[in-house]
Structure formats: structure tokens, C-alpha cells
């Protein structure tokens, strides 16, 4: 049995969402049609607007419908401090720690085997920023994966070239974890990045 053409189209389109297979797409479509037409209409309008108007901030590359996003154009923030993250979700996470500098988003990480090189994650753009703006420190907050490590190293070279100070968020043992269950690599990094335990 097949559904009407419009319904088929809806189900097919919903499958563009991550983790949504044919069954879930059907469930979503039926739910919206039978229980929540208003909700369905707002999704449609929001999607339409978002897809048409959201671009990347010209300065930090986050999603934004204006050329310079709210953070980049906020004069109260520290414009000499630049934190480099992989994704908008990482940016939000750092923002929640009370960080008040600027950001740069890579929207990915270096992964040559997937065909992702420095240009593909905007590092040429970062290089320009480091040369043109007065940045005193960059904080690298790429993920603690091997690809994140490679990306961090590449950025470090750019910082060195532009003579900008560079720091990196600490790798370590998650709060509340027990050492016994932490994988060797994480623990090796935590050992390598150990800090002096100061007398008070």
C-alpha cells in the first residue's frame, strides 16, 4: 500500500533529519496531521525562514541571520581573546562557563582521509583574522580526539606565525569518575598535562 503523493513526500522529507528512519518519519507525519496541525505549520514556517535567512557570521562562522552575530558585535565582550571550537554546540558549552571573549568556529576538524583539510574548516580565514585583528590570546578548545589534536597543532602553527599567544583547555579526568575505569589514553594525557599542586 502506498500513501497519497503529498503524504509520501512529507515522510520522505522528514527522513532528512538525523536518526529518522522510515518508521519514525511515518509516525511524525501522522502525529502532525492528526494531532498537531498548528505545530506542523509553525515547523514549516520556521524551517522556511531558517533555511532562507541563516548564513554564517562573517567573523566567527557561527549560524547567524545577520552578517556579524550577537557575540561578535557585542562591544562589552573582550575582543582580544579568541576561543576556537569545533561546533556551535561546543560554543554554547564554553559560553556557559562564563567565558566573555570572542569565538571562532571550525564547523568540523581536520580529517584528511575524509577529504577535510585546513581550508575546509576555515583555517585560512582564521589566519587572516590573526593577522588583521589585535588578538592577545587564542584558546584552543577542539575535542580531545586525535583529529582534534591535529587541528589544535595546525592552529598552534598559525598562532606562532602571527605571534599570538596560544593556550589550550586542559585534558583530564572527568569529575566524579574513578581512575580504574578511565581509558589509558585519557589517563596518559592527564598525566602528561599534570599541574603543580601548590602549597597554600
Amino acid at each position, binding site marked *: 500500500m502506498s500513501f497519497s503523493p503529498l503524504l509520501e513526500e512529507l515522510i520522505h522529507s522528514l527522513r532528512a533529519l538525523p536518526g529518522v528512519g522510515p518508521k519514525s518519519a511515518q509516525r511524525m507525519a501522522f502525529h502532525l496531521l492528526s494531532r498537531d496541525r498548528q505545530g506542523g505549520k509553525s515547523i514549516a514556517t520556521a524551517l522556511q525562514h531558517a533555511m532562507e535567512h541563516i548564513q554564517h557570521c562573517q567573523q566567527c562562522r557561527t549560524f547567524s541571520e545577520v552578517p556579524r552575530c550577537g557575540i561578535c558585535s557585542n562591544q562589552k565582550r573582550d575582543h582580544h581573546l579568541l576561543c576556537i571550537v569545533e561546533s556551535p554546540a561546543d560554543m554554547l558549552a564554553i559560553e556557559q562557563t562564563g567565558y566573555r571573549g570572542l569565538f571562532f568556529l571550525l564547523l568540523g576538524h581536520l580529517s*584528511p*582521509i575524509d577529504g577535510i583539510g*585546513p581550508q575546509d574548516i576555515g583555517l585560512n580565514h582564521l589566519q587572516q583574522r590573526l593577522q588583521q585583528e589585535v588578538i592577545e590570546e587564542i584558546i584552543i578548545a577542539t575535542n580531545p580526539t586525535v583529529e582534534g589534536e*591535529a587541528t589544535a597543532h595546525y592552529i598552534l*602553527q598559525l598562532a606562532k606565525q602571527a605571534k599570538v599567544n596560544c593556550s589550550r583547555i586542559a585534558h583530564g579526568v572527568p569529575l566524579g569518575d574513578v581512575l580504574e575505569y578511565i*581509558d589509558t589514553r585519557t589517563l596518559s594525557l592527564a598525566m602528561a598535562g599534570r599541574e603543580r599542586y601548590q602549597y597554600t
Partner: protein
Amino acid sequence: MCFIYDLLIIIDKGLYLTQRLEPAYILHTRYFRDTSLIVELFTQHEGTVAVLAKGARKQARWKGLLQLFAHVLVAWRGKSELPILTGAEPGGDALILQGDALFSGFYLNELLIRLLHKHDPHPRLFNVYQQTLAALNQGEVEKSLRCFEKQLLQELGYGLVLDRELENNTPIDPASYYQYHLEQGARKVTGTAKATDIYQGKSLLALHHDQLITQEARRDAKRLMRQAIAILLNHKPLKSRELFTV
């Protein structure tokens, strides 16, 4: 009925427990669906193999383990295109490549993924890879890369002949100049023309003996390897070379 079912479960578990764990290195991982990973392995006895690690992105046990360049002991099940990873344990020291050594590691992995055929065993190359990673970690970047490339060509049936002219078996003269061709080997040329595929005899001999002492020998070895590998890659550039552009 129930009894048979129980028995099957016991046999299944037994098979898993007695399954030999295969030493492997992780060459590449990519996300699959929401929680899984496709892991490309370079195994000691079965060459390169891609396996599906179900739920690997959710399990803390596998998340830290299934990282690039990690030495692991693995087991998988299934004969399909994408077998299922059934076990993974740490295989040795947690090697942490950093800086240029890390970039070089990406280069090695890209070469292996692009040049080896899946499931073709290369146990000798596996050992060379292992030694190369260790050497990279010690900071011997250039020398170890050239050695790896040489062994890789050998494994693929394109071993370089660097101590004599292939045509007439005349030993290479350190002072003469040679044109090097991947299939026809070295051939003496007159004069000292600076064409891109011309090398001085002493550079060929240095690479033959793995003694890349002078800067010129290193530069020539790099140039020769680049040309040889480019042919095998059908001149499609390697993405990992872009990492060395800063």
C-alpha cells in the same frame, strides 16, 4: 526446544570467548547512524578491514579505545562487506603522536587506505607500520617516512631498484646522473640535466642503504618517493599533505 536454544547460546558465547583477538591499528573512523562507528583497521594477518562498531559512540569503554593510531586487539564477526566488531581491547602502550609526527601519521594512514586492497594480508608491512609509528613518536620523522614508503612500494610489487641499472645490471655510480622510472628503474643520462626525474647516483645509493645523511640525499629521496607514489595514486593528490602547509 528450549534446551536447544540454550545450547546455541552457550556455543555462541564459547565461540566468542575462544575467538582469537587480532592485533590491529586504527586507520580511520567515521560516524555511522547516531551511535555507531565504522572503523577501518590495519590488521596484522588480514590486511585492511572495515568493521561496524555498534553503539561505540555511547559506550565509554570503546569511545576512548577506538581512536586513530591506537593499537588494539579486536575480534569481528560476519563475512559481509561490513562485519560487526565483537571485541576490542587495548593492544599495548597508548602511543600519543603529537605535532608533525601526528601529521605524518595521517599521511601513513591515507597511503594505506588508498593503496592497499581490503583483506589482502600484509603482515610484514604491519610490522613496518608499527615500527614507523614508534619512530615518529621518537621524532625521526623524515627517515622513518622514507623507509615506510620504500617498504610499501615493495609490498605493492613496485620495489625500487636503487643500486644498479635495471636494464644492464651496471652498478650505480655515485657521481653519475640517472633518470628514475617506477617500472624501468634507473637509467644513466649524460650531463647533469635538472629534470624532475633525474637523480645523482649517490642519492639513489643513500636511499638504497637507508642512509639519508646529507640534506641533498633527503631531498632527493623525498622527490623520488613522491613521484613513485603519485603514479600509484593515479596522480590524485593526498589530502594529508595539506597539513604540512603552515
